[in-house]
């Protein structure tokens, strides 16, 4: 998955604001901004979760569950997209 190229966004220290061209918008704080920055290029959910778990010294499975929830929302609302591979 990766963030969509047609999304308008700004990210600074622990804060993310994003809007679709249609004007649907989201704000997120904390690790959400890290996730967004890692979605700059295609990345799998396991790679994303592993990177965040290492950065924050957290349990991989717990991080993966949280990341999956957030990323699903990003995809459903048009901020991110999956590729065709099995790991998305």
């Amino acid at each position, binding site marked *: 998955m990766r963030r969509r*190229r*047609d999304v*308008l966004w700004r*990210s600074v220290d622990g804060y993310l604001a994003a809007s679709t061209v*249609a004007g649907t918008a989201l704000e997120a704080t904390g690790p959400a901004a890290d996730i967004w920055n890692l979605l700059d290029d295609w990345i799998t959910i396991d790679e994303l979760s592993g990177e965040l778990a290492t950065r924050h010294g957290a349990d991989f499975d717990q991080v993966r569950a949280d990341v999956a929830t957030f990323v699903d929302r990003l995809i459903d609302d048009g901020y991110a997209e999956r590729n065709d591979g099995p790991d998305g």
Partner: protein
Amino acid sequence: MGDSAALRAAAVVGLVDHAAAPVELSAYDADAVAMRARFDRMSGFVSTAIRTGVVEADDATLERVDDGWHEALFGVTLVEALAVRTAAQLDAAGVRWRLTKGAALAHLDYPQQLALRTFGDVDVVIHPDDWQGALDALFAVGHARPSPELRPGWDVRFGKGATLVDANDLEIDLHLRFAIGRFGVRSHMADLFERQDTIELAGRTIPTLTGPDRLLHACHHLVLGGFSGWRAARDVAQLLLITGVDWRETVAVAQRWGVAAVVAAGITGAWARLGLDVAHPAHDWAVDHPIGRRDERAIEVFSSQRPFRHQALTAVGALSPTRIPTYLWMLTVPARDARHGRSIGQHLRDRVGDVTRRRR
């Protein structure tokens, strides 16, 4: 005292080296700085100044400043989305246009500090021959014009432009000129459409004013914009010191238009406002540029934030004699929609009073 020192220090973050001692904020000054920064969309600069030690403030102040910054950033993404939709509508209608000010400056002139340069509306310059087409295209998708045209034909002949709002009250400023009054009526805005820079937003290529033309607009905004905040001064300095625009081209255009005084006042004003002690040939030119008495008086009308009609009346000395009667008629007898239901007699009494007072 502390609040303006802190804002000045923040306004030059990333522009000049900070060798001076940090500015310390008292609790009282911190409140004023946080509020002022939010109002002037400078919260990102102030936050960065605090984080880098240029300004000393407690954690509560930083949190308040960051709240203002985040609010502004959220607005920026909505405004950029509106800019992309506006681009699609204007392009589909065949309108010639250029993005200017906030979004154009942020992407082209603050590439290393994109998140710091926030803005609250879309600013677009429209080719004068395409004005009605632009309005029609944007009205067709539901945008409204809260302040109607002063009189039919005013916009294109003498006006600065129009502000439209969308269903969410986001604003699109459509510019026909960079200012009303003496300097606005001297401009030849069609010249700006002989050249362009571009940015990409949401995968769409957006035409913008060129660097020299962005500097020309930034100087107009700082000198004649009515609210000459820290950010307006920073934009002028940023274009010269960071982007390194061809300021001689700006001056050449300004001299052809008869608005070199605005560029000179903009550059010297930015240096003074920001307390810059940086040598630059554009500043040398601006300091040496003689500003005539009439230009100086007109600039003073804007810098002292006199009412709209006073500012508009500065055009009289710059118009050809054949255009003055029409100009004064349109200015003093606005159309019914622009009078908000007041009688012509009442308006004439008000306007004639204004003109008389101005000429004393």
